């Protein structure tokens, strides 16, 4: 029982950390061809996420692996139900990774243009579709004792799509703040301006998302039952406001931190509302997959807890260290060839 609750929290945390970290990679990837006015600026944008995007993406694989190990029935239902949507995310992530690594590997303009488009779509689609997927999970999937009764088009309902738009804007502002933090000169300035302007759209999307969540989902029930949890969405809103305040004061680092906090708190706003459901059913609450009816055995959960306690602190330790190694700002004219493999 305690382990199931613990793994429900960890499940939420893994997704939150994934969105917080890969969120700025995806945002920067979407902005790459619009903020980068020439090859040097584009290269600076890629180098701003180059050393870390791969390590960030592993949080997704860990979230997937943890879902598999801790909640196998939920993993099985979710991944087979959302088959087509996940497939598009998969292709997009494949293309995004390859675009980041291969973009600079040939000099031709057509080569560059193709990978620019690939990087844009490979970043936009996961942001959008993760939003759509979570919007639908919040809303509940059409599951009953016979299984899943939905279609790909069914996932593209207005609330699901709006959650997708919300995620895209969240990651765009997040990515712009990362670029403002990491790149020097005019590019950094433009990134900061983009974050400040984009923030208004994000605020509008967030407000609509929050208000719409009440009629579209049953997430509010947990909050009505235990109002003190409302602190989490309230903090999310507070940090969202701080993003703007600090961005205007040109405290880029603080604004980026506030954006990280916003993403984590938004994710947990959903996770708390879901509890104990991993996948609520819209057709029949009895068919919902919960932390209790979809979990692994207590023995397996205990093994997984030991594994997490052993390795996750180490992972966080060396990832933080690598972030510190690359904490410098990237100059736009700095030659990418200076020792590094072309990027």
């Amino acid at each position, binding site marked *: 029982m305690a382990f199931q609750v613990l793994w429900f929290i960890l499940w939420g945390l893994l997704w939150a950390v994934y969105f917080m970290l890969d969120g700025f990679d995806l945002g920067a990837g979407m902005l790459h061809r619009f903020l980068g006015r020439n090859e040097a600026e584009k290269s600076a944008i890629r180098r701003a996420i180059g*050393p870390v995007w*791969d390590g960030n993406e592993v949080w997704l694989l860990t979230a997937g692996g943890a879902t598999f190990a801790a909640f196998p029935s939920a*993993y099985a239902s979710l991944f087979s139900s959302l*088959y087509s949507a996940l497939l598009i995310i998969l292709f997009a992530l494949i293309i995004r990774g390859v675009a980041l690594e291969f973009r600079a590997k040939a000099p031709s303009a057509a080569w560059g243009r193709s990978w620019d488009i690939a990087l844009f779509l490979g970043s936009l689609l996961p942001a959008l579709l993760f939003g759509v997927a979570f919007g639908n999970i919040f809303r509940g999937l059409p599951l009953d004792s016979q299984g899943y009764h939905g279609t790909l088009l069914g996932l593209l309902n207005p609330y699901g799509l709006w959650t997708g738009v919300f995620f895209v804007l969240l990651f765009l502002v997040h990515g712009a703040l990362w670029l403002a933090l990491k790149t020097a000169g005019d590019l950094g300035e433009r990134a900061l301006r983009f974050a400040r302007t984009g923030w208004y759209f994000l605020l509008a999307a967030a407000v609509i998302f929050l208000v719409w969540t009440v009629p579209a989902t049953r997430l509010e029930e947990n909050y009505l039952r235990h109002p003190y949890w409302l602190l989490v969405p309230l903090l999310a809103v507070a940090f969202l406001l701080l993003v703007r305040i600090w961005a205007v004061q040109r405290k880029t680092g603080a604004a980026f931190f506030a954006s990280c906090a916003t993403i984590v708190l938004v994710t947990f706003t959903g996770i708390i509302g879901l509890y104990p459901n991993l996948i609520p059913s819209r057709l029949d609450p009895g068919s919902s997959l919960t932390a209790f009816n979809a979990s692994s055995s207590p023995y397996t959960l205990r093994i*997984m807890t030991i*594994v997490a306690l052993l390795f996750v602190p180490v992972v966080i330790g060396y990832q933080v260290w*690598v972030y510190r190694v690359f904490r410098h700002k990237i100059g736009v004219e700095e030659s990418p060839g200076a020792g*590094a493999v072309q990027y």
Partner: protein
Amino acid sequence: MDVLSLSRLQFAVTAAFHFIFVPLTLGLSILVAFMETRYLRTNDPMYLKMAKFWGKLFLINFILGVVTGITMEFQFGMNWAEYSRYVGDIFGVPLAIEATAAFFLESTFIGLWVFGWNRVSKKVHVLAIWLVALATNLSALWILLANGWMQRPVGYVLRNGRAEMTDFGSLFTNRFGWVTFAHTVLSGYVLAAFFVMGVSAYHLLRKNEVRLFRSSFRTAAAFGLVSSVLVAASGDLSAVQVAKFQPAKLAAMESFWETRPGAPFTLFLWPDSANERNAFELLPIPKALSVMAFHRGDAEVKGLTAFPGDERPPVLPVFLSFRLMVGLGLLLILLAFIGWIKGVRGKLEGSPRYLKIMLYSIPLSYIAVQVGWLVTEIGRQPWIVYGLMKTSAGVSPSLLPAQVVASLIGFTIVYGLLAVVDIYLLIKYSKKGPDDDLSGILKSVPAKEA
């Protein structure tokens, strides 16, 4: 085709494609780490140039291994939901450990290695590539322990309508998994050695950077020779495990039909599955199969007819793949041995014919590892978990054939494009040779700015 056949085809295609990149990553990471270590020790810029040249090829290959690996983790849930539900309590654990204990390490330190040339000390930089090498190999260990459990399920009980883990220790110490791990990573080392020897041969034939490529070739030849011999040895251990736990697979590998003691190994034969016999058999070596499988000449080997028709793997592909793997494996040992001798005697550049053979041998090692996996995976059929769950019972019930057709077409297009780009870049950068411009690094003192 139905959802089951389509899903099997898709899994086979995506796993085989993923496995084009993994073996090179396994072996080349070690070779690059070794080269950079020599640079650290000797301060000879040639070794730096060498590490960077092979490192660049390593990275082109590495990224494709990473992105095609995501597919594998997703696919269990997408196409094999019943399997995931039934065995996730056990099978999910090594996958989750792989991500936390190995994949993070690999992905984080590759970033440090690529971008860290002027940011960290030389020692830390070498450490980064060794950690990448360690992590890729650890990653393979956890994946193959997961696979080893599918081949020989241990440490579980059937409870609550599924298989539940009762003993993580026996999953971790599953001999089947460890033997497969050894056989697989070693074959990856062989493949990487042949890759390095082949590309080096190309440049040696053109008298290009002779010192660098001679040294690369000799390193790879020694690495390849040792690894290829160990591949054979681990293959022998593997055969013993198969004989003990998967007798039907062993029988299919040899197209062996009638159970008998003192079973011969037949050098040439052709299976005739319809009539449950071989169309012809030439040159049997008495008792050799019994010795191979049980290390005892009089041991009884089970023939295919000892198993009901629906519990036999398809004989022809398993038989042919196995023969091809063994044949190629022996050929690779021979080629590596010749290369090692020629390297030691300083006769590489004087042997254009051998160098040409080595250049064209690169695909042979790729074929050898692919057919090796075909033996393992087709030979396990019709089981998804040997003796416990049939493949047909594991497929996702909610899928429609059209969905899987669409995804299969998607994979074919996306992976096809990736293959074209990968081959283009590998050939381009292999031919281009090492970069002369090491200016940024040689004066490298770790940058200390904020």
